[in-house]
Protein backbone atom coordinates (compact mmCIF):
# COMPACT_ATOMS: atom_id res chain seq x y z
CA UNK A 1 0.00 0.00 0.00
CA UNK A 2 2.90 2.37 0.71
CA UNK A 3 4.11 1.73 -2.83
CA UNK A 4 0.67 2.78 -4.11
CA UNK A 5 0.97 6.09 -2.25
CA UNK A 6 4.51 6.61 -3.59
CA UNK A 7 3.22 6.13 -7.14
CA UNK A 8 -0.10 7.95 -6.94
CA UNK A 9 1.11 11.13 -5.19
CA UNK A 10 3.74 12.08 -7.85
CA UNK A 11 1.42 10.85 -10.61
CA UNK A 12 -1.49 13.07 -9.55
CA UNK A 13 0.91 15.94 -8.87
CA UNK A 14 2.36 15.76 -12.38
CA UNK A 15 -1.07 15.16 -13.93
CA UNK A 16 -2.48 18.32 -12.32
CA UNK A 17 0.61 20.28 -13.43
CA UNK A 18 0.30 18.95 -17.02
CA UNK A 19 -3.42 19.62 -17.21
CA UNK A 20 -2.98 23.20 -15.97
CA UNK A 21 -0.34 23.74 -18.67
CA UNK A 22 -2.60 22.19 -21.33
CA UNK A 23 -5.56 24.30 -20.24
CA UNK A 24 -3.38 27.43 -20.34
CA UNK A 25 -2.23 26.55 -23.88
CA UNK A 26 -5.90 25.89 -24.84
CA UNK A 27 -5.13 22.29 -25.80
CA UNK A 28 -8.62 20.86 -25.27
CA UNK A 29 -8.42 17.84 -27.61
CA UNK A 30 -5.12 16.81 -26.02
CA UNK A 31 -6.95 15.99 -22.78
CA UNK A 32 -8.52 12.87 -24.36
CA UNK A 33 -5.33 10.81 -25.06
CA UNK A 34 -3.92 12.08 -21.76
CA UNK A 35 -6.92 10.73 -19.86
CA UNK A 36 -6.93 7.44 -21.85
CA UNK A 37 -3.24 6.84 -21.09
CA UNK A 38 -3.70 7.93 -17.47
CA UNK A 39 -6.49 5.38 -17.04
CA UNK A 40 -4.18 2.70 -18.45
CA UNK A 41 -1.43 3.74 -16.04
CA UNK A 42 -3.82 3.82 -13.08
CA UNK A 43 -5.44 0.53 -14.12
CA UNK A 44 -2.21 -1.45 -14.30
CA UNK A 45 -0.92 0.21 -11.11
CA UNK A 46 -4.02 -0.68 -9.11
CA UNK A 47 -4.29 -4.23 -10.49
CA UNK A 48 -0.61 -4.96 -9.87
CA UNK A 49 -0.24 -3.36 -6.45
CA UNK A 50 -3.55 -4.51 -4.96
CA UNK A 51 -3.03 -8.10 -6.18
CA UNK A 52 0.68 -8.66 -6.95
CA UNK A 53 0.31 -12.47 -6.97
CA UNK A 54 -2.75 -12.51 -9.21
CA UNK A 55 -2.71 -13.59 -12.87
CA UNK A 56 -0.21 -11.61 -14.94
CA UNK A 57 -0.91 -9.76 -18.19
CA UNK A 58 1.09 -12.38 -20.13
CA UNK A 59 -1.03 -15.16 -18.63
CA UNK A 60 -4.21 -13.32 -19.58
CA UNK A 61 -3.03 -12.77 -23.18
CA UNK A 62 -1.94 -16.41 -23.54
CA UNK A 63 -5.33 -17.57 -22.20
CA UNK A 64 -7.02 -15.26 -24.71
CA UNK A 65 -5.07 -16.95 -27.52
CA UNK A 66 -5.89 -20.39 -26.09
CA UNK A 67 -2.29 -21.19 -25.16
CA UNK A 68 -1.95 -23.42 -22.12
CA UNK A 69 1.04 -23.18 -19.77
Amino acid at each position, binding site marked *: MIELVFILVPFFGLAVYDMKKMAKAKLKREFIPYIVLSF*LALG*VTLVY*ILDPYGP*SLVKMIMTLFGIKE
Partner: protein
Amino acid sequence: MLANKGKITVRQALILFVLATFSPSIRLFTAGTARGAESAAWLTPILSALVMIVVFKILSSIFRNRNITNLGVFFDRALGKALGRTVLVLFLLWLVVLYFVYIRYYTERLIMTIFTGSETKLFIIVLMLLVFMATRGKIESFARFGEFSFIVFTVVFITFFLFLIPGVRIDNIWPVTHFDAIPVVKSSYNILSIWGYVTFSFFLGDRIADKEKLGKYTAKTIIYLASIATLTIVTVIGTLGPSLVARMPIPFFSALTTISIMETLDRLEPFLLSTYVMSDFIVVVFFAQIIIAVLKELFKVSETRYLSTPIAFAGYAGSQFLASSRFELGKFSTVLGLWVNVVLCIAAPAVIFIVGKIRKKI
Protein backbone atom coordinates in the same frame (compact mmCIF):
# COMPACT_ATOMS: atom_id res chain seq x y z
CA MET B 1 20.52 20.52 -41.56
CA LEU B 2 16.77 20.03 -41.47
CA ALA B 3 14.56 22.88 -42.46
CA ASN B 4 11.61 21.21 -40.71
CA LYS B 5 11.64 21.87 -36.98
CA GLY B 6 10.57 18.95 -34.78
CA LYS B 7 11.32 16.42 -37.50
CA ILE B 8 14.04 13.87 -38.11
CA THR B 9 15.39 12.46 -41.35
CA VAL B 10 14.55 8.98 -42.64
CA ARG B 11 18.22 8.12 -42.08
CA GLN B 12 17.90 9.02 -38.38
CA ALA B 13 14.63 7.05 -38.14
CA LEU B 14 16.35 3.99 -39.60
CA ILE B 15 19.28 4.40 -37.21
CA LEU B 16 16.80 4.44 -34.29
CA PHE B 17 15.17 1.31 -35.70
CA VAL B 18 18.55 -0.46 -36.06
CA LEU B 19 19.46 0.51 -32.48
CA ALA B 20 16.09 -0.72 -31.23
CA THR B 21 16.85 -4.14 -32.71
CA PHE B 22 20.20 -4.50 -30.89
CA SER B 23 18.83 -5.44 -27.48
CA PRO B 24 16.34 -8.11 -28.64
CA SER B 25 18.76 -9.46 -31.25
CA ILE B 26 21.50 -10.17 -28.69
CA ARG B 27 18.98 -12.03 -26.55
CA LEU B 28 17.12 -13.82 -29.29
CA PHE B 29 19.01 -14.38 -32.53
CA THR B 30 21.64 -16.82 -31.37
CA ALA B 31 19.58 -19.04 -29.07
CA GLY B 32 16.44 -18.87 -31.22
CA THR B 33 18.12 -19.77 -34.48
CA ALA B 34 20.44 -22.37 -32.89
CA ARG B 35 17.38 -24.18 -31.50
CA GLY B 36 15.87 -24.62 -34.96
CA ALA B 37 18.64 -24.49 -37.54
CA GLU B 38 21.62 -25.63 -35.39
CA SER B 39 24.92 -25.25 -37.30
CA ALA B 40 23.15 -23.64 -40.29
CA ALA B 41 21.73 -20.86 -38.07
CA TRP B 42 24.08 -18.28 -39.61
CA LEU B 43 22.12 -18.57 -42.87
CA THR B 44 18.88 -17.28 -41.30
CA PRO B 45 19.86 -13.56 -41.51
CA ILE B 46 20.55 -13.96 -45.23
CA LEU B 47 17.12 -15.46 -45.85
CA SER B 48 15.48 -12.84 -43.60
CA ALA B 49 17.29 -10.09 -45.53
CA LEU B 50 15.50 -11.21 -48.70
CA VAL B 51 12.12 -10.88 -46.96
CA MET B 52 13.12 -7.48 -45.60
CA ILE B 53 13.85 -6.23 -49.12
CA VAL B 54 10.16 -6.84 -49.88
CA VAL B 55 9.04 -5.11 -46.66
CA PHE B 56 11.21 -2.06 -47.43
CA LYS B 57 9.88 -2.00 -51.00
CA ILE B 58 6.29 -1.95 -49.71
CA LEU B 59 7.03 0.80 -47.17
CA SER B 60 8.89 2.76 -49.81
CA SER B 61 5.92 2.48 -52.22
CA ILE B 62 3.50 3.60 -49.48
CA PHE B 63 5.48 6.70 -48.53
CA ARG B 64 6.28 7.76 -52.06
CA ASN B 65 2.80 9.28 -51.88
CA ARG B 66 3.30 12.55 -49.99
CA ASN B 67 -0.32 12.55 -48.77
CA ILE B 68 0.32 9.44 -46.66
CA THR B 69 2.09 10.95 -43.67
CA ASN B 70 2.21 7.89 -41.41
CA LEU B 71 1.07 4.27 -41.16
CA GLY B 72 -2.21 5.25 -39.49
CA VAL B 73 -3.14 7.36 -42.51
CA PHE B 74 -2.13 4.43 -44.76
CA PHE B 75 -4.51 2.08 -42.86
CA ASP B 76 -7.36 4.59 -43.22
CA ARG B 77 -6.71 5.03 -46.94
CA ALA B 78 -6.36 1.33 -47.73
CA LEU B 79 -9.06 -0.13 -45.48
CA GLY B 80 -11.50 2.70 -44.96
CA LYS B 81 -11.95 4.75 -41.81
CA ALA B 82 -13.68 2.17 -39.56
CA LEU B 83 -11.46 -0.82 -40.33
CA GLY B 84 -8.34 1.36 -40.50
CA ARG B 85 -9.00 2.71 -36.99
CA THR B 86 -9.64 -0.83 -35.68
CA VAL B 87 -6.31 -2.03 -37.09
CA LEU B 88 -4.60 1.02 -35.60
CA VAL B 89 -6.05 0.23 -32.14
CA LEU B 90 -4.82 -3.39 -32.46
CA PHE B 91 -1.34 -2.10 -33.27
CA LEU B 92 -1.55 0.30 -30.32
CA LEU B 93 -2.44 -2.51 -27.90
CA TRP B 94 0.44 -4.65 -29.13
CA LEU B 95 2.85 -1.70 -28.95
CA VAL B 96 1.87 -1.17 -25.30
CA VAL B 97 2.59 -4.86 -24.59
CA LEU B 98 5.99 -4.60 -26.32
CA TYR B 99 6.77 -1.43 -24.34
CA PHE B 100 6.13 -3.34 -21.10
CA VAL B 101 8.09 -6.36 -22.41
CA TYR B 102 11.25 -4.34 -23.09
CA ILE B 103 11.16 -2.56 -19.73
CA ARG B 104 10.82 -5.95 -18.06
CA TYR B 105 13.63 -7.53 -20.11
CA TYR B 106 15.91 -4.65 -19.15
CA THR B 107 15.44 -5.36 -15.43
CA GLU B 108 15.57 -9.14 -15.84
CA ARG B 109 18.89 -8.85 -17.71
CA LEU B 110 20.46 -6.73 -14.97
CA ILE B 111 19.31 -9.21 -12.35
CA MET B 112 20.54 -12.21 -14.35
CA THR B 113 23.99 -10.76 -15.00
CA ILE B 114 25.46 -8.42 -12.39
CA PHE B 115 22.79 -7.49 -9.83
CA THR B 116 21.78 -11.05 -8.95
CA GLY B 117 18.94 -11.16 -6.42
CA SER B 118 18.44 -7.37 -6.38
CA GLU B 119 15.08 -5.59 -6.18
CA THR B 120 13.88 -4.59 -9.66
CA LYS B 121 11.88 -1.48 -8.75
CA LEU B 122 14.83 0.93 -8.50
CA PHE B 123 16.08 -0.06 -11.98
CA ILE B 124 12.62 0.54 -13.43
CA ILE B 125 12.29 3.94 -11.71
CA VAL B 126 15.65 5.07 -13.15
CA LEU B 127 14.67 3.92 -16.65
CA MET B 128 11.23 5.52 -16.40
CA LEU B 129 12.75 8.86 -15.36
CA LEU B 130 14.93 8.71 -18.49
CA VAL B 131 11.94 7.73 -20.63
CA PHE B 132 9.95 10.64 -19.16
CA MET B 133 12.72 13.11 -20.05
CA ALA B 134 13.35 11.63 -23.50
CA THR B 135 9.68 11.62 -24.51
CA ARG B 136 9.10 15.13 -23.14
CA GLY B 137 12.13 16.46 -25.00
CA LYS B 138 12.62 16.93 -28.71
CA ILE B 139 12.72 13.90 -30.99
CA GLU B 140 15.66 15.51 -32.84
CA SER B 141 17.76 15.30 -29.65
CA PHE B 142 16.86 11.64 -29.24
CA ALA B 143 17.73 11.00 -32.90
CA ARG B 144 21.11 12.72 -32.48
CA PHE B 145 21.76 10.60 -29.38
CA GLY B 146 20.88 7.62 -31.58
CA GLU B 147 23.42 8.66 -34.23
CA PHE B 148 26.14 8.89 -31.58
CA SER B 149 25.11 5.56 -30.00
CA PHE B 150 25.10 3.91 -33.41
CA ILE B 151 28.82 4.64 -33.86
CA VAL B 152 29.58 3.43 -30.32
CA PHE B 153 27.56 0.21 -30.81
CA THR B 154 29.16 -0.54 -34.15
CA VAL B 155 32.69 -0.06 -32.80
CA VAL B 156 31.96 -2.13 -29.65
CA PHE B 157 30.37 -4.99 -31.60
CA ILE B 158 33.09 -5.13 -34.27
CA THR B 159 35.68 -5.23 -31.48
CA PHE B 160 33.80 -8.12 -29.82
CA PHE B 161 33.58 -9.98 -33.13
CA LEU B 162 37.31 -9.54 -33.74
CA PHE B 163 38.07 -10.95 -30.30
CA LEU B 164 35.60 -13.83 -30.71
CA ILE B 165 36.60 -14.93 -34.23
CA PRO B 166 39.83 -16.75 -33.14
CA GLY B 167 37.71 -18.98 -30.88
CA VAL B 168 35.29 -20.00 -33.64
CA ARG B 169 35.36 -23.73 -34.41
CA ILE B 170 34.44 -24.46 -38.01
CA ASP B 171 32.74 -27.75 -37.10
CA ASN B 172 30.17 -25.74 -35.06
CA ILE B 173 28.94 -23.88 -38.17
CA TRP B 174 29.82 -26.31 -40.94
CA PRO B 175 28.84 -28.47 -42.88
CA VAL B 176 25.61 -26.99 -44.19
CA THR B 177 23.62 -29.25 -46.52
CA HIS B 178 20.33 -29.06 -48.42
CA PHE B 179 18.68 -30.78 -45.42
CA ASP B 180 19.18 -27.51 -43.51
CA ALA B 181 16.95 -25.53 -45.89
CA ILE B 182 13.65 -26.19 -44.07
CA PRO B 183 15.06 -25.57 -40.54
CA VAL B 184 16.64 -22.32 -41.79
CA VAL B 185 13.30 -21.16 -43.25
CA LYS B 186 11.48 -22.13 -40.04
CA SER B 187 14.02 -20.36 -37.79
CA SER B 188 14.08 -17.13 -39.75
CA TYR B 189 10.93 -15.92 -37.93
CA ASN B 190 13.19 -15.22 -34.92
CA ILE B 191 14.99 -12.59 -36.97
CA LEU B 192 12.06 -11.29 -39.00
CA SER B 193 10.02 -10.67 -35.85
CA ILE B 194 12.65 -8.16 -34.69
CA TRP B 195 13.65 -6.64 -38.02
CA GLY B 196 9.95 -6.11 -38.69
CA TYR B 197 10.06 -3.22 -36.19
CA VAL B 198 10.92 -1.07 -39.20
CA THR B 199 7.18 -1.04 -39.87
CA PHE B 200 6.50 0.41 -36.39
CA SER B 201 9.06 3.17 -37.11
CA PHE B 202 6.71 4.60 -39.72
CA PHE B 203 4.03 5.40 -37.17
CA LEU B 204 6.47 8.24 -36.52
CA GLY B 205 5.95 9.25 -40.15
CA ASP B 206 4.63 12.74 -39.25
CA ARG B 207 7.98 13.43 -37.64
CA ILE B 208 10.09 12.08 -40.52
CA ALA B 209 10.84 14.81 -43.03
CA ASP B 210 12.00 12.86 -46.09
CA LYS B 211 10.10 9.56 -46.00
CA GLU B 212 10.04 9.36 -49.79
CA LYS B 213 13.83 8.79 -49.68
CA LEU B 214 13.39 5.47 -47.83
CA GLY B 215 14.35 3.47 -50.94
CA LYS B 216 17.77 5.15 -50.95
CA TYR B 217 18.63 3.64 -47.55
CA THR B 218 17.10 0.18 -48.07
CA ALA B 219 20.27 -1.58 -49.24
CA LYS B 220 22.51 0.04 -46.61
CA THR B 221 20.12 -0.80 -43.75
CA ILE B 222 19.58 -4.41 -44.78
CA ILE B 223 23.28 -5.06 -45.43
CA TYR B 224 24.15 -3.59 -42.03
CA LEU B 225 21.48 -5.64 -40.21
CA ALA B 226 22.38 -8.86 -42.03
CA SER B 227 26.13 -8.40 -41.43
CA ILE B 228 25.78 -7.75 -37.70
CA ALA B 229 23.28 -10.63 -37.26
CA THR B 230 25.41 -13.09 -39.27
CA LEU B 231 28.56 -12.14 -37.37
CA THR B 232 26.74 -12.45 -34.04
CA ILE B 233 25.47 -15.93 -34.90
CA VAL B 234 28.76 -17.13 -36.43
CA THR B 235 30.88 -15.95 -33.52
CA VAL B 236 28.58 -17.12 -30.71
CA ILE B 237 27.51 -20.49 -32.18
CA GLY B 238 31.00 -20.97 -33.61
CA THR B 239 32.55 -20.47 -30.18
CA LEU B 240 30.07 -22.33 -27.95
CA GLY B 241 28.38 -24.79 -30.31
CA PRO B 242 24.66 -24.87 -31.33
CA SER B 243 23.43 -27.34 -28.70
CA LEU B 244 24.89 -25.29 -25.83
CA VAL B 245 23.76 -21.93 -27.27
CA ALA B 246 20.18 -23.22 -27.69
CA ARG B 247 19.97 -23.81 -23.92
CA MET B 248 21.46 -20.48 -22.77
CA PRO B 249 19.46 -17.38 -21.76
CA ILE B 250 22.04 -14.84 -23.07
CA PRO B 251 24.61 -16.78 -25.19
CA PHE B 252 26.42 -13.65 -26.38
CA PHE B 253 27.22 -12.78 -22.78
CA SER B 254 28.54 -16.31 -22.16
CA ALA B 255 30.63 -16.21 -25.36
CA LEU B 256 32.30 -13.00 -24.21
CA THR B 257 33.46 -14.69 -21.01
CA THR B 258 35.61 -16.97 -23.19
CA ILE B 259 37.63 -14.02 -24.57
CA SER B 260 41.16 -13.79 -23.28
CA ILE B 261 43.73 -11.82 -25.25
CA MET B 262 47.33 -12.76 -24.43
CA GLU B 263 46.22 -13.63 -20.87
CA THR B 264 45.93 -9.92 -20.01
CA LEU B 265 42.70 -8.66 -21.56
CA ASP B 266 39.61 -10.54 -20.41
CA ARG B 267 36.35 -9.92 -18.49
CA LEU B 268 34.79 -7.84 -21.28
CA GLU B 269 31.21 -8.48 -20.08
CA PRO B 270 30.78 -5.03 -18.44
CA PHE B 271 31.32 -3.42 -21.87
CA LEU B 272 28.53 -5.55 -23.32
CA LEU B 273 26.32 -4.84 -20.36
CA SER B 274 26.75 -1.06 -20.65
CA THR B 275 25.95 -1.14 -24.38
CA TYR B 276 23.06 -3.47 -23.56
CA VAL B 277 21.59 -0.99 -21.05
CA MET B 278 22.01 1.84 -23.57
CA SER B 279 20.26 -0.29 -26.18
CA ASP B 280 17.44 -1.08 -23.72
CA PHE B 281 16.94 2.63 -23.08
CA ILE B 282 16.74 3.26 -26.84
CA VAL B 283 14.26 0.44 -27.52
CA VAL B 284 12.00 1.52 -24.63
CA VAL B 285 12.02 5.20 -25.69
CA PHE B 286 11.51 4.07 -29.31
CA PHE B 287 8.31 2.23 -28.33
CA ALA B 288 7.17 5.07 -26.05
CA GLN B 289 7.58 7.55 -28.93
CA ILE B 290 5.66 5.24 -31.28
CA ILE B 291 2.79 4.77 -28.78
CA ILE B 292 2.56 8.56 -28.45
CA ALA B 293 2.60 8.92 -32.25
CA VAL B 294 -0.22 6.35 -32.62
CA LEU B 295 -2.29 8.17 -29.98
CA LYS B 296 -1.63 11.43 -31.82
CA GLU B 297 -2.97 9.91 -35.03
CA LEU B 298 -5.88 8.17 -33.32
CA PHE B 299 -7.15 11.27 -31.50
CA LYS B 300 -5.92 13.79 -34.11
CA VAL B 301 -4.09 15.98 -31.61
CA SER B 302 -1.25 18.41 -32.25
CA GLU B 303 0.69 18.46 -28.96
CA THR B 304 1.84 15.18 -27.42
CA ARG B 305 4.75 15.95 -25.12
CA TYR B 306 2.45 15.97 -22.06
CA LEU B 307 1.78 12.26 -22.61
CA SER B 308 5.26 11.54 -21.22
CA THR B 309 3.82 11.55 -17.67
CA PRO B 310 1.18 8.78 -18.05
CA ILE B 311 3.42 6.73 -20.36
CA ALA B 312 6.25 6.67 -17.80
CA PHE B 313 3.90 5.70 -14.96
CA ALA B 314 2.20 3.05 -17.11
CA GLY B 315 5.64 1.59 -17.89
CA TYR B 316 6.53 1.31 -14.21
CA ALA B 317 3.47 -0.68 -13.12
CA GLY B 318 2.83 -2.39 -16.47
CA SER B 319 6.27 -3.96 -16.67
CA GLN B 320 5.79 -5.54 -13.24
CA PHE B 321 2.23 -6.61 -13.91
CA LEU B 322 3.34 -8.09 -17.26
CA ALA B 323 4.76 -11.40 -16.03
CA SER B 324 5.17 -13.17 -12.72
CA SER B 325 8.56 -14.63 -13.65
CA ARG B 326 11.35 -14.57 -16.22
CA PHE B 327 10.25 -17.98 -17.50
CA GLU B 328 6.70 -16.82 -18.10
CA LEU B 329 8.04 -13.82 -20.01
CA GLY B 330 10.38 -16.00 -22.08
CA LYS B 331 7.59 -18.40 -22.94
CA PHE B 332 5.30 -15.55 -23.96
CA SER B 333 8.01 -14.14 -26.26
CA THR B 334 8.84 -17.41 -28.00
CA VAL B 335 5.37 -18.96 -28.19
CA LEU B 336 3.30 -15.90 -29.02
CA GLY B 337 5.24 -12.62 -29.12
CA LEU B 338 7.50 -13.37 -32.06
CA TRP B 339 4.63 -14.64 -34.19
CA VAL B 340 2.42 -11.63 -33.45
CA ASN B 341 5.39 -9.42 -34.45
CA VAL B 342 5.72 -11.26 -37.76
CA VAL B 343 1.98 -10.97 -38.44
CA LEU B 344 1.73 -7.27 -37.53
CA CYS B 345 5.06 -6.04 -38.91
CA ILE B 346 5.58 -8.20 -42.01
CA ALA B 347 2.28 -9.78 -43.10
CA ALA B 348 -0.23 -7.04 -42.16
CA PRO B 349 1.43 -4.16 -44.10
CA ALA B 350 1.77 -6.41 -47.16
CA VAL B 351 -1.89 -7.54 -47.00
CA ILE B 352 -3.18 -4.00 -46.35
CA PHE B 353 -1.03 -2.70 -49.21
CA ILE B 354 -2.51 -5.28 -51.59
CA VAL B 355 -6.06 -4.44 -50.37
CA GLY B 356 -5.32 -0.74 -50.92
CA LYS B 357 -4.06 -1.44 -54.44
CA ILE B 358 -7.14 -3.56 -55.27
CA ARG B 359 -9.42 -0.78 -53.96
CA LYS B 360 -7.26 1.71 -55.92
CA LYS B 361 -6.80 3.85 -52.81
CA ILE B 362 -2.99 3.70 -52.66
